[in-house]
């Protein structure tokens, strides 16, 4: 008789793999990516490809030459980080700034913590915030949404303000938020929502973190709006503008840097929502989602400790 396998139970396992999960998130990002490329043209393609390729190559190089471990790029997590980083940058970011971002994301925020699963902060967001602080001019200059210019080589992009900047300067309107100028991934909320629906249908993520961020933003900015309608955005505009959609659907729900339990996720989401609105309205930056998520990332171990799962028979 041939040698039989012997192992402890269970003897079957799900078909789901880490790679499949990462691939699903990448698929969910495709509508937003397509919109970004459509409206921002060649420059956006350059940013995205530099970002994805450099992230993957960096992770491969670090595992091979520094850590001397088997390569982990096949799990697609580095590609996902690269895509998210690219979508978090303005389309006219110079390629070398993107490259620095990739080094920070993969080298500093991910691999120095021990690679996938070990990092405390979302790598793409760490890189975005690092670039925002280091190169504030590049990071806050956005091209206007002009398809014709975007696909014409040799024409410099015309820069335009984001809805949030307009509001900060007190002359924004709700219509500005629907197709908004901004970081590449933020222009179309609709594309992001399609991605969200895909993630939920494929059961890649649970909706609680995202929904609690939305609810908090709506309620908090609603209170502010009712208190002083002239000074603050309407709640709906607040929710749909800037990076809240991208952040709440794709960044805050990152497995590694979000709490494990539903209850923890809701606390995490409420924290992000509150911090975002606070930074937007009283901070020096027009947008606060990145900072809010990073700050709440730091609280995840604590939230995990406090929000234990409810156990069977231990009411």
């Amino acid at each position, binding site marked *: 008789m041939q*040698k039989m396998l*012997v192992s*402890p139970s269970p003897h079957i396992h799900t078909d789901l793999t880490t790679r499949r999960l990462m691939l699903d998130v990448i698929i969910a990002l495709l509508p937003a990516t397509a919109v970004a490329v459509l409206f921002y043209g060649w420059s956006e393609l350059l940013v995205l490809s530099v970002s994805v390729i450099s992230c993957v190559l960096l992770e491969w190089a670090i595992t091979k030459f520094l850590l001397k471990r088997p390569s982990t790029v096949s799990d697609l997590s580095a590609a996902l980080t690269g895509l998210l980083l690219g979508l978090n940058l303005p389309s006219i970011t110079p390629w070398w700034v993107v490259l620095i971002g990739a080094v920070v994301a993969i080298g500093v925020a991910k691999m120095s913590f021990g690679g996938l699963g070990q990092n405390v902060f979302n790598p793409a967001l760490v890189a975005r915030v690092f670039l925002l602080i280091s190169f504030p001019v590049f990071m806050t200059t956005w091209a206007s949404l002009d398809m014709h210019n975007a696909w014409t080589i040799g024409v410099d992009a015309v820069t335009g303000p984001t809805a949030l900047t307009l509001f900060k300067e007190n002359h924004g309107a709700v219509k500005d938020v629907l197709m908004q100028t901004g970081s590449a991934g933020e222009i179309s909320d609709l594309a992001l929502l399609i991605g969200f629906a895909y993630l939920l249908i494929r059961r890649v993520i649970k909706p609680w973190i995202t929904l609690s961020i939305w609810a908090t933003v709506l309620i908090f900015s609603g209170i502010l709006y009712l208190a002083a309608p002239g000074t603050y955005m309407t709640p709906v505009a607040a929710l749909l503008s800037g990076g809240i959609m991208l952040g709440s659907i794709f960044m805050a729900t990152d497995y590694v840097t979000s709490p494990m339990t539903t209850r923890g996720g809701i606390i995490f989401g409420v924290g992000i929502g509150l911090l975002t609105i606070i930074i937007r309205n009283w901070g020096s930056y027009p947008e606060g989602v990145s900072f809010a998520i990073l700050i709440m990332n730091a609280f995840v171990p604590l939230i995990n400790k406090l929000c234990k799962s409810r156990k069977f028979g231990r009411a």
Partner: protein
Amino acid sequence: MSNIIIWTIVVLFGLGVILSMVLYLVANKFKVQEDPRIDEVEKVMPGANCGGCGFAGCRAFAASCVEAGNLDNNFCPVGGNDTMKKVAAVLGLEVKEKAPMVAVVRCNGSCQNRPRTSEYDGYRSCKVESMLYKGETDCAFGCLGCGDCVGACAFGALSMDEQTGLPVVDESKCTSCGACVKACPKGIIELRRKGPRGMRVFVSCVNKEKGGVARKACTAACIGCGKCAKVCAQEAITVADNLAYIDFEKCKLCKKCVEECPTGAIHAVNFPQKPKVQKEEE
């Protein structure tokens, strides 16, 4: 401008003085009186904190030595007699010398001797595997080969031999702390006397099955035939449960048993190689 600098210096200096006083007072108030000899003993310890002595670490061992007032029950297997002499000197006590020991792997069930009959596919741990079943071979007593002992060794003295699938002890690194003995779920590893120039004789098998069953599972198994016990002039060999055991306190390293053993289960190591010619003359 200079005002700011002066104030800064003054405030920081003042803070430093006040806080250092607080620290001093607190440190004095909560000072724990400890026998200063514990520190001295700890200094001569190897500092590996391996727990081989039975205490939580070198300091706990030192504290126990000081407290007991004698060294009868305390021995540091890692530092050996040298360390114990130093400890004795520090404390002004006497210490009995102990023969140096070494970890011995009592299984010779290499891939060749002991064919695999199944393939273990669970978590690579001898402990997990032994909880599940007899192991990959038909010998329910022998080495499982997942290397729990290697992981337990703090001194890098154990490694798995890829060829045989068995752990190998590096005698120069082994400190006989006994961590591997505890880690092995099959109880294969034993601390035995190292012997003069490392020479020692031992039964490299722990199979308690009847001879036929043991032999079927592994060609190098001890079949409990008792030939070795008969030939031993020192009465060092006992056979119980179909398994021979050599008492290293009694063994005089004559190696008669090694020649007598029909399965080659008795091993003699570190003996100088005899020239081949001599053997043929015998």
